């Protein structure tokens, strides 16, 4: 447990960053994006390897050692947790994060499903949820082989989700007008980069287990090759090229091809770390183009993400990954038959979601089409189908204590949804009256003194001597009277005059009259 203390410097940086807001780290000049987005893209990329590997391998029937699969899935969940923190840090107003959820709040507002950020938010939430579900199913199947039957249907559901999630992350960039971020190849570019970095991390973690999987290393190198080709494409298209990413992520890994070196674990560890470093630089140069100097807080956030990953990894590995049987049985099951009804259920849920979104967004005059919902199709259908499988088939195998835990989670989830529905305060904190200073050239007090004070008095009490001599007494300035008249009719009185008051139409500008009315309200008792 002592290693938890490693987190402390990172947490200090994180808290400082949250309190100070985006000004505390380096921001791109025109995009206002910075390190948190870099770290988010980096860790979400890494998270792809684990689930991708075990889900796709399982779905396609490729044998993989159970321990390797479990470790990879665990690293996925942890890097997802690490990644999920950073979009929140990135936000200017963190307490408003809930407005991104396409969920109806009590102001009857719906988030904008045209925005890639909303797709992103949903896809990642669902991906995280399914990764945990998949890991749980895998973990439970170690004790109860009957569950194994449902692992493959889940794997088939996760297969498209994994690819769609990183495609959506790439769309965050590709839909904008920043020239460096545009390109039709961005989805494949991001997915390949994610697989490359993710496999590098999994291979790195396997070194500590004294294990090695040639297939994973080959896949890593293959995706690395594709990535280098895409970099070349990007360079020829836009002329920007990240030299440090190239050196770390494609020159150093060439050491792998020297036969003597690649059998040495230290060399392999160096290659994997160099790939991770290189891909981090790649994202950094992508998000903050033409910016070199990182601030202290940037380094703090980077340190935080790395320490959080490893601390959670060491902690959870001890808890969950032990006594794993060595051989993996390739289980043949009726995957697609099990999937039929859950998938139909998922499609139904998606259709309901589209109808709900349409209903609320068209009320606000937002131009919306079914097209705009499509990026959410895969995540939502997969989410509904997987939940269906989990609730219908897997839940009954659970032990009593786990069931209780899940019940508590459900209650918490509904409480959370309720909190989202209620939302936070949306009231403005108006500037206090004392802080409102008129500018030097617009001294409202002087205007009052020059134009109004002759009759109404400098403090709003009457200039009785003057009035009694010439006019009958004007109305007393009381708050209730001013409020009953309302600002607009008072405005007209000043403009056109009334009874003994003369018209000020040509002597005061409309703005001055409004200001005088505000000033008068301040004088009223």
């Amino acid at each position, binding site marked *: 447990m002592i290693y938890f203390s490693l987190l402390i410097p990172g947490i200090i940086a994180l808290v400082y960053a949250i309190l100070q807001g*985006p000004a505390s780290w380096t921001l791109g000049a025109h995009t206002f994006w910075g390190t948190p987005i870099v770290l988010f893209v980096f860790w979400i990329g890494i998270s792809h390897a684990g689930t991708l590997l075990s889900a796709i391998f399982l779905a396609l029937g490729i044998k993989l050692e159970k321990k390797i699969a479990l470790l990879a899935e665990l690293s996925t969940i942890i890097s997802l947790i690490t990644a999920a923190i950073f979009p929140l840090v990135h936000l200017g107003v963190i307490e408003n994060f809930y407005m991104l959820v396409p969920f109806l709040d009590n102001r009857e507002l719906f988030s*904008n499903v*045209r925005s890639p950020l909303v797709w992103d938010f949903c896809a990642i939430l669902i991906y995280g949820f399914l990764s945990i579900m998949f890991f749980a199913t895998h973990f439970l199947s170690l004790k109860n082989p009957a569950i194994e039957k449902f692992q493959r249907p889940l794997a088939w559901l996760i297969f498209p989700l994994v690819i769609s999630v990183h495609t959506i992350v790439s769309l965050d960039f590709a839909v904008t007008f920043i020239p460096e971020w545009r390109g039709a190849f961005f989805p494949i570019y991001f997915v390949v980069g994610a697989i490359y970095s993710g496999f590098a991390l999994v291979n790195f973690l396997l070194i500590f287990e004294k294990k090695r999987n040639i297939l994973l290393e080959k896949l890593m190198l293959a995706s690395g090759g594709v990535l280098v080709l895409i970099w070349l494409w990007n360079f020829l298209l836009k002329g920007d090229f990240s030299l440090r990413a190239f050196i770390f992520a494609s020159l150093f890994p060439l050491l792998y091809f020297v036969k003597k070196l690649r059998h040495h674990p230290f060399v392999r560890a160096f290659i994997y770390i160099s790939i991770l470093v290189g891909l981090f630089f790649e994202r950094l140069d992508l998000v903050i183009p033409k910016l070199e100097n990182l601030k202290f807080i940037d380094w703090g956030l980077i340190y935080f993400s790395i320490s959080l990953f490893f601390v959670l990894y060491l902690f959870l590995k001890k808890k969950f990954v032990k006594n794993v049987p060595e051989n993996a049985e390739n289980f043949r099951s009726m995957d697609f038959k099990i999937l039929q009804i859950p998938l139909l259920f998922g499609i139904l849920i998606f259709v309901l979601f589209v109808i709900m979104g349409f209903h609320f967004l068209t009320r606000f005059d937002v131009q919306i089409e079914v097209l705009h919902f499509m990026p959410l199709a895969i995540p939502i259908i997969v989410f509904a189908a997987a939940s269906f499988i989990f609730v219908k088939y897997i839940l009954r195998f659970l032990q009593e204590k786990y069931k209780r835990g899940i019940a508590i989670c459900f209650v918490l989830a509904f409480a959370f949804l309720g909190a989202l529905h209620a939302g936070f305060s949306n009231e403005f904190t108006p*500037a206090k009256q004392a802080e409102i200073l008129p500018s030097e050239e617009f001294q409202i007090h002087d205007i009052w003194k020059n134009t109004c004070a002759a009759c109404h008095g400098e403090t709003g009490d009457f200039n009785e001597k003057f009035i009694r001599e010439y006019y009958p007494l004007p109305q007393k300035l009381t708050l209730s009277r001013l409020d009953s008249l309302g600002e607009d009719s008072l405005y007209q009185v000043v403009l056109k005059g009334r009874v003994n008051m003369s018209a000020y139409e040509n002597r005061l500008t409309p703005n001055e009259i409004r200001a005088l009315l505000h000033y008068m309200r301040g004088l009223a008792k």
Partner: protein
Amino acid sequence: MDRREFLKNCSLALAGFSLFGCTKTETKKIPSDEDFEREVQMALSLKRENIPLVKIEMPSGKLNQKVRLGMAIDLTRCDTCGACILACNKENNIPLVPKEDAELGHFMHWIQLTKEFPLMCFHCEDAPCEKVCPTLAASHSLDGVSVMMYKRCAGSRFCGANCPVHARKFNAYDNQKENLSRVFNANVPLREKGVMEKCSFCLQRIQENRIAFKTENPTREWIAENFKTACANACPKHAIYCGNWLDENSELVKEAKRHVLYAPESIAAFNPSIVYMRELR
């Protein structure tokens, strides 16, 4: 530890803790008019490079739309003096920026200057920033103005990344706490830390104009006659024509008909409400 030592340590600790009280007492310093003028002068010395302009059609309205507010800026008259920036800053309580940002040319000003013309939010009918706002904080008003709901903004800055002319500004600092802002106009709220802001087409003036019109003519439809933004009011060369694109009798439409209209190349496809005028037609 004997009693003597204990008391000694205690009093030392007490003395140590009392040092925490020795913070500098901050007096609230509200920036003066000169500070704002100085910043505008600085912005004038750091003008942006010109961006290419292309010819466009006159902005038109949708079916049944009566008001589409907009502007036409006469580039033959504009000499980029910066009077509009100062007027805009005071009208909309735009905060100052710390020195480091100012030196880099990152101001909060809603109007920026290139070497030939002023540049602000173009209030595109088909605005790219509104499309990517996840919370719909950036949306379009019925008068054709691209508006910003500060309280709905989560500060994701996606809109800022998606504006081709970078018209959007991000409130990175707590302006009130850091003495960067000042209330010139009580009708405009000070923006909180973490939200985006941009030209609002003087929303408060639109509202004022509408209310004034409706009080005098309750039965007539408001078509934004005599509406002027702060920058149009302040322009010493009268280069800014401001009004309703759908009002055939307005000065704006009459002037726009006489001139060839231009918009930045990157904006032209989004149907901007603010256009430039150069030569006569």
